[in-house]
């Protein structure tokens, strides 16, 4: 059995290290959590990096607690916590969106999309500082206008798939783009492509029409 080499469809080691340490901000860790829910081998890689934290616990010089802790009271407190169960999966068939996304948005059939033009629809999931996580629904065969990135973009595919001119991305895949190069994803022809896209800087489109659309897309 060979281990996954994390080609483009999986997050790189530095991203997983940051996820494991807890350093990834809101939005980014949602995209990674969605990928991990769908990719057992990256879950194992993430656990490898979490074990750095485990080793740190083992090696840490203990810091005595100031207040003596009453274990019985702590257990009582634990037993009193109301368990928040995630949204029940919709009846009839397995859900498309995995947790933790489904608790935030409902399943794919629940989404109320807003058209942004050119066969692309969107739903903003969360905004945190400059980071925006949005769902995109791209009609079959449609190209998202060519755009360059100033910051980081993570795209986790939930259904359907797309080509970016070099690689194909399908359900469970994630694309992490950190460079400036423009790219132009094209949805595969057989089905719409639904993906979770997280960006941290306004995306710059090339060409006039997409630029005019940009304020509406809030991209």
């Amino acid at each position, binding site marked *: *059995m*060979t*281990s996954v080499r994390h080609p483009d469809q999986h997050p790189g*080691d530095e991203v997983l*290290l*940051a996820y*494991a340490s*807890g*350093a990834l901000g*809101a939005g980014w*860790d*949602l995209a990674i959590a*969605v990928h*991990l*829910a*769908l990719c*057992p081998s990256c*879950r*194992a890689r993430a*656990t*490898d*990096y*979490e*074990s*750095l*934290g*485990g*080793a*740190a*616990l*083992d090696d*840490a*010089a*203990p*810091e*005595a*607690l*100031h207040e003596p*802790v009453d*274990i*019985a009271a*702590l*257990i009582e*407190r*634990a037993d009193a*916590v109301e*368990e*928040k169960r*995630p949204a029940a*999966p919709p009846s009839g068939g*397995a*859900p*498309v*969106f*995995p*947790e*933790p*996304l*489904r608790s*935030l948005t409902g399943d794919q059939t629940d989404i109320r999309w807003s058209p942004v033009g050119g066969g692309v629809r969107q739903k903003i999931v969360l905004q945190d500082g400059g980071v925006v996580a949005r769902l995109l629904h791209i009609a079959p065969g449609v190209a998202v206008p060519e755009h360059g990135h100033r910051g980081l973009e993570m795209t986790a595919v939930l259904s359907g798939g797309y080509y970016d001119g070099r690689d194909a991305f399908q359900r469970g895949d994630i694309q992490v783009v950190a460079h400036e190069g423009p790219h132009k994803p094209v949805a595969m022809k057989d089905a719409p492509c639904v993906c979770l896209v997280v960006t941290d800087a306004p995306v710059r489109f090339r060409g006039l029409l997409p630029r005019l659309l940009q304020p509406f897309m809030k991209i």
Partner: protein
Amino acid sequence: MEGDAGELWEARLSAVAIQRDRTAFAELFSHFAPRIKAVMIRGGMAADMAEEIAQEAFVAVWRRASTFDPERASASTWIFAIARNKRIDRLRREARPQPDPEDPAFAPDEPDAADTMMTARERADRVRKAMATLPPDQRDVVMRSYFSEHSHSQIAEDLNAPLGTVKSRMRLAMERLRAALESEHEEGSL
């Protein structure tokens, strides 16, 4: 965690999960809570908040002990991950999004993985050993990036080193860690 001690903590977590063993829970608490506090302080957290995080983590340890799977993670790794999430919840004032193994859309682990892979404890030992063999300057940037909120550029400033140097140390360290784990995977699967 070195072999035997790790096994001991796993057994105590199982006792908490299955028998709701309060003595085992108290032992876990007195071992790990002060260490969680120490690691949180190292990450820049105030001592009283670090202490609260340690307690909140143990509320979750009691509630979620049955989800501990020794095939997936060692006891200290599992407890670290809980404490890390409590820290994030506190900083964001909302729950950190996490995959849910009970979710019907969750892709389960491959069934043969457990036979061909090292145990979680062995893997954790490999990571620890690989870290120990990194050149000190590389280990330093990994640890700074792991345990502080600092970005690469902040780390470069702290070290008074060019950003490119920090980035290349980080990249080299990640390559070495990955290589160490992959060679051990192959060994483990023979």
